[in-house]
Every structure is written in C-alpha cells, then in structure tokens.
C-alpha cells in the first residue's frame, strides 16, 4: 500500500480543515461586490501578508480562494472583498453578522514588502484586483518612512464598479502619494478619467530604477501592463504579478492549480516576473 505523507499541521483546523469564523460585518462596495470581515470563533491570531489568500467555505455550497483585503496590522480579524459571480461567492456575500463561515489559510506568498523597502512602490490594479493590493497600501501608509513614493494606478470597468471609493479619494490627497483612477467607459456624471488602465502611466511620475511594481487584475490586463512597464524602463525583476487558477486544497497537495513547474497556491499567487517569464510568454498571459 502506498502511503502519502501528510504533514501533521494538515490535520490542524485552518489548514486542511476549515476553522469556524464568525461574520462581524458585510459592507457593500458595488452592485455585486462586498467586503466581508470575519473573526476566529476562538479569538485566534489572524496575521497574514498582503497578497496571501484564504479558502472560504460556505456550508453546503462549496469552498473558494479569496485574497485577504484587510489591514495586515489588524490581528484579530480578516477582511475579504468578494465579487459575487457564482454559487460559492453568492453564498459568502449572503451572510449576515453573527453567522459562521469556514476559513482555511492564509496560503501562498504575498507581495514583496521587505524587498520594496527604501523604494517607490507602484501598484497597478484592475477591477477586483485592487483587493489583494489594498493591504500593501495600508502597510506602506502605516510604515511611511520605510518606503519612497506610493503610486496607485487603478482601472475599472465603469464608475459604478470602482472599489473603495472613499479610500481612493483619501489616498489621492496624501503627500508622496499619487492615486490615479480611470474607468473603461464613463457617463455624463463621471468627471474623472476615462480610458484603460495603461493610459494612466503617462500621468504617473515614475522612476523605474528605484520602483517596485505590483500588478493584479485579469491576465489580459496584466499583459498590457507588463508591456507598458517594460517600455517605461522597468527591469523584469522589479515587476511582481498575482496569478489566479482554480484551486482545491490551497496548499500544494492536489495539483489543481499546477502551472508548469509551479503550484500557484504554494509558490504564488504572487510571482516575480523574471522568474515566470518563460511560461508567461509561452502561455496565455
């Protein structure tokens, strides 16, 4: 009989077995997107690195990977910004305060916050892709002297799809910070920028040689952004991307998220562009 070695930690709640978390609040962000804040039933520590994700489980419906979108300085709760697209996400955003969901994780490698120390930080986000990057913004703002300028370029489909609108406005007013927002299509009531996210590069004051770029959004968007970054003089090793694939275990056992030699759940979801380039350029990204 072949025995598959399973690490002891796998049996502890929160790794392969979901741990019960209680819903503290649910905040509507847009028509189909909500931020869910949960705390451990046992009051346990919830430390994470921005860019990591959890597997969120709704009883009787299923389990899905969702990035942690909250403040890494908070250690007693976790926030997730969830776009309701199908059964599992719909069940999650249908929860009320006091109800329970199952949480496993946090899993994966987050954004390179230590590497970026002393450098400017450029965040390029599209749509729901801002969620895994919000923690980076909180972290940089909380540790302002450890970083240079913070530049956020955020693109969304339309004004009504913009996440964190109040925070975006507040970030844009901060010193040493540029927060530029654009939408693909606007109406008469929208006085902001219109155009795809790459149109924002022109208005960003960038110094590629001292900037770490963190990019998250649909893969096609990231392809256009990489082109723009490379044309603007960014080195491949200064570009970091967060990738998505279907996931099951979240922890490198099942092979569901395999991508070439990597498991996205364990080796990613954040990757340095130069390391994955052979695959990125060959495959669909």
């Amino acid at each position, binding site marked *: 009989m072949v025995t598959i070695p399973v690490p002891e930690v796998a049996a502890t709640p929160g790794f392969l077995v979901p741990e019960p978390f209680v819903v503290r609040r649910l905040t509507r962000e847009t028509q189909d997107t909500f931020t869910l804040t949960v705390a451990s039933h046992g009051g346990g520590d919830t430390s994470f690195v921005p860019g990591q994700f959890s597997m969120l489980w709704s009883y009787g419906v299923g389990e899905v990977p969702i990035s942690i979108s909250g403040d890494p300085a908070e250690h007693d709760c976790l926030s997730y910004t969830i776009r309701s697209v199908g059964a599992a996400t719909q069940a999650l955003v249908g929860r009320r305060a006091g109800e329970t969901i199952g949480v496993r994780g946090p899993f994966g490698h987050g954004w390179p916050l230590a590497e970026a120390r002393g450098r400017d930080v450029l965040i390029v986000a599209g749509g*729901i892709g801002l969620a895994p990057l919000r923690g980076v913004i909180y972290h940089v703002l909380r540790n302002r002297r450890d970083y240079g300028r913070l530049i956020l370029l955020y693109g969304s*489909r339309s004004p009504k799809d913009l996440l964190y609108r109040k925070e975006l406005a507040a970030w844009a007013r901060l010193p040493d910070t540029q927060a530029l927002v654009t939408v693909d299509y*606007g*109406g008469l009531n929208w006085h902001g*920028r*219109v*155009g795809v996210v*790459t149109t924002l590069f022109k208005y960003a004051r960038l110094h590629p040689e001292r900037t770490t770029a963190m990019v998250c959004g649909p893969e*096609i*968007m990231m392809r256009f952004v990489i082109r723009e970054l490379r044309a603007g003089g960014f080195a491949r090793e200064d570009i970091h991307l967060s990738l998505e694939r279907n996931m099951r275990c979240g922890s490198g056992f099942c092979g569901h998220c395999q991508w070439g030699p990597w498991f996205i759940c364990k080796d990613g979801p954040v990757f340095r562009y130069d390391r994955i380039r052979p695959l990125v350029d060959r495959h669909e990204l």
Partner: protein
Amino acid sequence: METLERIIAEHPYLSGIDPQWIELLSGCAANRKYEPGSYIFREGQEANEFFLVRSGRIAVEMAMPNHDPITVATVLDGDVLGWSWLLPPYQWKFQGRVVEPTRVFALDGKCLRQKCEANHDLGYELLKRFCKIIDRRLDQARFQLLDVYAVAR
C-alpha cells in the same frame, strides 16, 4: 508671437522637434479657453483643427440615440486631441465636451495641410508624431474592447 512660439515648443507633442517647424506651426495656432459643459467639436462637424491641450480635461464622447452620450476617453494636460483634420472627409467622429476649465492651442488643419503639401519634410515629421499617437490609441482601444473586467461566462 515669439512668446506663442516658445510656449508651443514646450508642449510634449512637439518635444524635440526641429525649431524651424515651430515657427511654421505657430503661424497656424491660436490660444483658446473653454468652460466646463461647452463642446469643442461635435460629431459629424467639419474637422479643420486639432488641439494641443495645455491644461484641463476634455471628455471624448460618442453620442447615443435615446441615451446619454458615452465617454470613451479623456484628454488632459499635455495630450493631443484630434486627427480627423488629416484625412478626408475631414469630419469629427466623436464629440469633445469640456469637463474642467481648459486651455488649448488650436491648430488650423486647413492651413497646416497646405503647409505640409508645400513642405513634405514638415508633413513627414507631423505624420510620424501622429502615427505614434494613433498606434497607442489603437492599442488602448483594443484593450478597451476586450472588456477584461467582465465575468467570463
């Protein structure tokens, strides 16, 4: 006139251009201001100008029957607006609505077309600069059409 030449030369569209062309271009340029809500041009109108935006914001809109217009791009400080003056039938395909107080240099396309016909070196220089802009806009328009933030069904 000398001041107009100096200011025009500072616009990013003309960055690095041979100074001899600045004088020629300035002869076709006018300084203009627009207030929010006004239209710089409307779809279907004759396109005899293009604009070097000095400051402000203009929404490039597509008019929709029985619907509010849809903004497909915004044009800001340092941008160039319009290339319909370059090619027949010299007609605007979109409309330009001013969103914030805006200052532009309006360049007379008819006057420029004549100068370009008479001086192909100038024409080639301008075309190269416009091609670069058109290439970027085409790329951006393709990206926009992909509607990447929609849920895959």
